[in-house]
C-alpha cells in the first residue's frame, strides 16, 4: 500500500472519525496560529470560516453576522498560507524496528499526515530528507502536485548514513528566508547541545519549530537479557554488553538525553513531542495539535 493510500486510509479517515472537534482543532490551530506578515498586500478573498478565539475582530464579517447571526471571519488567500517545511531524518538509526513499524516508516506517515492536513488548509508544505546532509529538499507549496511529489520522495527514501541533524538544520536555517514552520521528525540520537544550538539558529531565523522524537518501544524498555552484541546501524563499532546489567544505566542515559533535549527545546521555544512507533498516529496528531492550539493561542 502506498504512503498516500495508507495515510488517507489509516490517518485521515480515522481523523474523520474522530469528529468535528479534531478537525476543528486542526483547522483552528492552523488558521489562528499563523497570521500573514504580508497583511494588506494580497487581500484576495478566499471565503469565511467560523470565528475562533484569538481571531482579529477586525476580520469579523459583521454583514454575515447581521444576516445569519453567526460569527464568521473573512479569510484571505495570503493570510492563511503557512510555509511549513517537514524535515525527516533518514539516517541509518531510523531504520530500527523491534518487530513492528520502523521509525522511518512512522516518520513518513507522520510527515504525510501533516502534509495532507496542511495542504487541505491551503498551506504551503515543503520537505527535507536528510541524514548527515540534505538529500532532498522540496520547497513549500500549497499545490496538491507538490504534496504528491513529497509523498513520492518520502516513499522512495532509503535509510542510511549517520545522524548529523544539527548540520542539516544549520544548512536549512541559511536557506530559510521567510517566516515559516519547521517540523522535524527524528529519533534525535545526536548530541543534544549541538542540536539545541541548531534549533536556536533556526529560531533566530524566525522559524516556528516542532520536534517529533520517535522512539521504538525497545529503545525505551531495553528488554535484552544476558550477553548481547549490539551492532550499530550507522557504522558504529560493535559493543558486547550484559543486557541485564546495563539496562538501568541505559534507561537512565536515555531519560537524561530526553530530559536535556526537552529542556533545550523549551529554552529555545521549540515544541518537543516524544512519541513511539507503537503509538496511534491519529491520537498523536490530535494530542499534538491540541497542545499546539493551546500553546499557540497562549503565545
Amino acid at each position, binding site marked *: 500500500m502506498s504512503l498516500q493510500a495508507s495515510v488517507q486510509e489509516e490517518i485521515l479517515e480515522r481523523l474523520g472519525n474522530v469528529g468535528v472537534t479534531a478537525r476543528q482543532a486542526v483547522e483552528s490551530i492552523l488558521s489562528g496560529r499563523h497570521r500573514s506578515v504580508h497583511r494588506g498586500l494580497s487581500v484576495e478573498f478566499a471565503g469565511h470560516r467560523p470565528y475562533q478565539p484569538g481571531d482579529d475582530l477586525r476580520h469579523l464579517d459583521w454583514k454575515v453576522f447581521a444576516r445569519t447571526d453567526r460569527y464568521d471571519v473573512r479569510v484571505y488567500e495570503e493570510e492563511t498560507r503557512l510555509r511549513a517545511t517537514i524535515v525527516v531524518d533518514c539516517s541509518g538509526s531510523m*531504520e530500527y524496528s523491534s518487530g513492528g513499524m520502523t521509525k522511518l516508516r512512522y516518520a513518513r506517515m507522520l510527515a504525510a499526515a501533516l502534509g495532507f492536513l496542511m495542504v487541505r488548509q491551503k498551506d504551503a508544505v515543503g520537505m527535507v530528507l536528510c541524514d548527515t546532509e540534505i538529500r532532498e529538499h522540496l520547497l513549500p507549496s500549497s499545490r496538491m502536485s507538490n504534496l504528491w511529489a513529497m509523498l513520492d520522495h518520502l516513499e522512495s527514501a532509503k535509510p542510511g548514513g549517520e545522524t548529523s541533524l544539527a548540520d542539516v538544520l544549520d544548512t536549512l536555517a541559511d536557506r530559510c528566508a521567510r517566516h515559516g514552520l519547521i517540523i522535524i521528525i527524528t529519533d534525535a540520537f545526536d548530541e543534544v547541545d549541538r542540536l539545541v544550538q541548531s534549533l536556536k539558529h533556526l529560531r533566530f531565523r524566525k522559524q516556528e519549530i516542532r520536534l517529533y522524537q520517535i*522512539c521504538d518501544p525497545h*529503545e525505551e524498555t531495553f528488554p535484552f537479557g544476558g*550477553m548481547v*552484541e*549490539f551492532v550499530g546501524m550507522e557504522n558504529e563499532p560493535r559493543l558486547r554488553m550484559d543486557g541485564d546489567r546495563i539496562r538501568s544505566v*541505559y534507561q537512565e*542515559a*536515555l531519560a537524561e538525553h530526553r530530559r536535556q533535549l526537552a529542556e533545550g527545546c523549551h529554552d529555545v521555544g521549540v515544541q518537543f513531542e*516524544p512519541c513511539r512507533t507503537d503509538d496511534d498516529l491519529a491520537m498523536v496528531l490530535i494530542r499534538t495539535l491540541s497542545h499546539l492550539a493551546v500553546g499557540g493561542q497562549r503565545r
Partner: protein
Amino acid sequence: MIELLNLSMLGGLAAISAPVIIHFMHRRRIKPVTWAAMQFLRAMPAKSRRRLFLDEWLLLLIRSLILACIAIALLRPAYFASSAGNAGRVERQGRTGAVLLVDDSVSTSSGRGRSAIESMKQLATSYLDTLSTGDEVSLIRTSQLGKATADPIFDLEAARRSVEAIESTEVESDVPGLLSAGLDQMARHVNPGIELVLIHDGRKEGWKVDDEQQWKSLRAEIESDPEAPIGTRRRPRVVMLSPEPRPEANIAVSRIRLDRALIPEDLPIEIDVSLVHYGESDPEEALLRLFVDGRSVEERPVTIEAGETSRETFTYTFEEAGSHVIEAVIEGARDSLAADDRRALSVEVTKSLPVLLVEGATGKGFEGSLGYVAASLDPGGDGRGLFRLDRTTIGRLDDVDFRDFRVMILGDVPALDASTVAKLERFVMMGGGVLVGLGPATQPLLANRDWARGSEGFLPATLGRRRVPPGSLLPAEARVGHYGMQAFEDQATNVWSEAKIDAYYRLDTTGLLGSEVVSLLSLTNGDPVIVERARGRGRVILVTTTLDAKWSDLPFVSAFVPLIRGLTAYLGSVVLPPRNMRPGDRITYCPSDLESREVVLCEDPKGNPIVLEQGYWEDYPARISEPLASAGIYRVRDASGKNRVYYAVNPRRNESRLTVLSNEDLRKTLANVPLVSLQQSDEVIDVLGQTKRPSRELWPLLLMLAVGLLFVESLMTSRQSRRELRASASQTPESGGAA
C-alpha cells in the same frame, strides 16, 4: 601454622569455580542485536560501564568467596600456635581425641595394699581432668581386644565413670595389641588432636620386647608423618601413664605336671607342683594345698627362697575314670599377686586305651611284626590292662572304624592304599596317635610317595636309604622331659647299652629336625631312631628300625616295655577338645549324641551358670561358650549329673614375673617415638593440664565470613534489582510518553 584437618573434603574447593564457570558460560551465549541507540551504549564506558564492570566482578568475587569460605570450612583448617612453651609442658593443638588404652591384664591386680589397677585408674582420672569440653575419649581395654570397640564419647563424666568401673581381669597383657587397636580407633575420632594414652602397670610382661618386627610396624604407623606436629592425626602423641613400678615379691604356682601323660585309674601317680618366688626379698613360707575335684587332699608347708623354684611332689590315685581336676593353691604367703597363687590342671583318667595294631606279617604271641609290642602293652593277653589291643592286617583295614581307637601302631607295613592313607591322616588330624615301625617289608618309595608326601603326609620325615652298619650301633641319647620317654629320665645307668641296631632307615629331616620333628632317641652315630612330629591335633612317632627282632635287639632289652608303653600312652593321651585353657579361650564340650539332646549345664569358678551355645567342633556337635574372662575351674555336666567334665583356665605364667619395664625396654620398643611418660597424678596435671589453648579451629570464622559475604551479596543484588525495577517501571508506555 595452619593445617587442614579434613582433607577428604578437598574436592569441595572445586565449587569455587562454579560462579566463574556460570559467568563465562553466560557470557558465551552472546546474541547479536541490531541497535540504533548506540550513542547511549558508547557513552556508558565513560561513566557507568566501569561501575557495571566493577559491580559484576565484585559480585562474582563475593560469590566465589562465599563458596570458598564454605569449602575451606569443610576442610576444617586449624591454626596451630608454635609449640615453644614451658619446658616439659605439653601444649595440645586444637580439640583432643584421647584414646585410653588400659591394660587390665592379670598383673595389674598386683600390689600389696593398693593394687596397680587402682593407681592406674587414678592416673587415668587425672588425665581426664586435663581434658575440657569438646574433647572426646575412647576406652579400650586389653580384655576387650578383638571385640568391637565403642564410639568415642564427648561426655567426660561418663568417661570417668567408665574408668572407675575398670577391674583387673585374668587376661594376658598385650601392649602392642593395645597400641594397634588404639591406632585403628583414631579414625573414629573427629577432633584434630590425637593422643594415645597407654595406661599400664609398668611391668615388662606383655610388651613383647623381642618382637622387633611388630614394634617396627607399630612405630611406622605412629610416626606415619615424622614432619607433622606431634599430637595430630598423622603423628599422635603417645602418653604413657603408669604408676611407679616397684620390685614386688610374688610367689606363684608355675606348673602342675604329672609323671605320665595317660592317667590310668587305680594307679598312683605323682603330681609335681612347681612354685616360683619372683622377688629378691627374704625366703617366703607358705602353705601349699592340693585339691582334687575341689576336695583338699593334702597340704604341706613350703619355704621358697627368693628367686628360686621349688618343686613339691604329691602322690594320688584316681579311683574313677573320667574327667578330674587337680588344683594347687598357695596360702599365707606375703604375696603381691593373688591371681597366680593357684593353678589347676584338668586330667582325663583312662580305664582302657583302645589300640589298633596293624602288622605287615601276622602271627600269634611274639610272632608277627608287632608280637613284642602286643606283649609289652598287654602282657596277659586278656585285655584287662590299660591298653585294649586289636590286632589286624592291612587287608582288613577297610572294615575298621578308626574312631574306635585312640592309637594305631603300624609294624613293618609294606604299603597302604590311598583310602586307608586318607583315613589315617584324618585320624591323626583329629587327635589320634600313630606309631610307625619300619622293617624289611617297608617300601621306601611307596612310603615316601604316599605316607610322607614331602612333608605333607602323616609320616614325620622322608625315608632315606636303608643303612646296615658294619658293626651294630647302640642307642645313645634319649630326649629328656618327654612323656613318652619319661621312664628313662631317672635311670642312672644307660639302659640302652644292651640294644644293638643292625639295620635302620636314615631319615631326611632337612629343615625339620629340631623344629617340627623331634628326635626322641638317637644312635651313637647321631642318626635318629625314634622321631616325633605333631600333625594337626594328633602325633606320629616313627621308629626307623623294626619293632620286632629282625633288625635290632630292642625287644630283648629291659627298656623296650616301658618304651612302647610310654610311647603308646603318650600318643593316646591327647584329650580333645582341649580342657586346659587360657583366659579368652572358649569352652568346647562335645557331648555324645544322646547327651546333645539333653540340657548341658556349665558353671564358672564362682558357681554362676554360663550359657553354652549349640555349635560344631571338627564336624562333631558341640556346645561352645563365650570367651572366658576369668581364670579358675569351670564345670560342665549334663542334666543327670552323670557326665561331668572339668575345664581349667590358668593365666599365663609370665604374668607372674612382675618385671619392671626398663628404659632399655622402652628404647627397644617405642625407640624414637616421642613419649610423654608420667607416673604421678600431680605430674599429669602439671604436664598435660591446659591453662589455655594456643590453637583453634578456623571453620567458625570462615562460616561467619561466608554469612557476612552472603549479606553483602544480597544487598548488592537487591540494590541492583531495585534499580532495574525502578528503571523498567519508569519505562512503561504511559510514563515513556510523559518523558
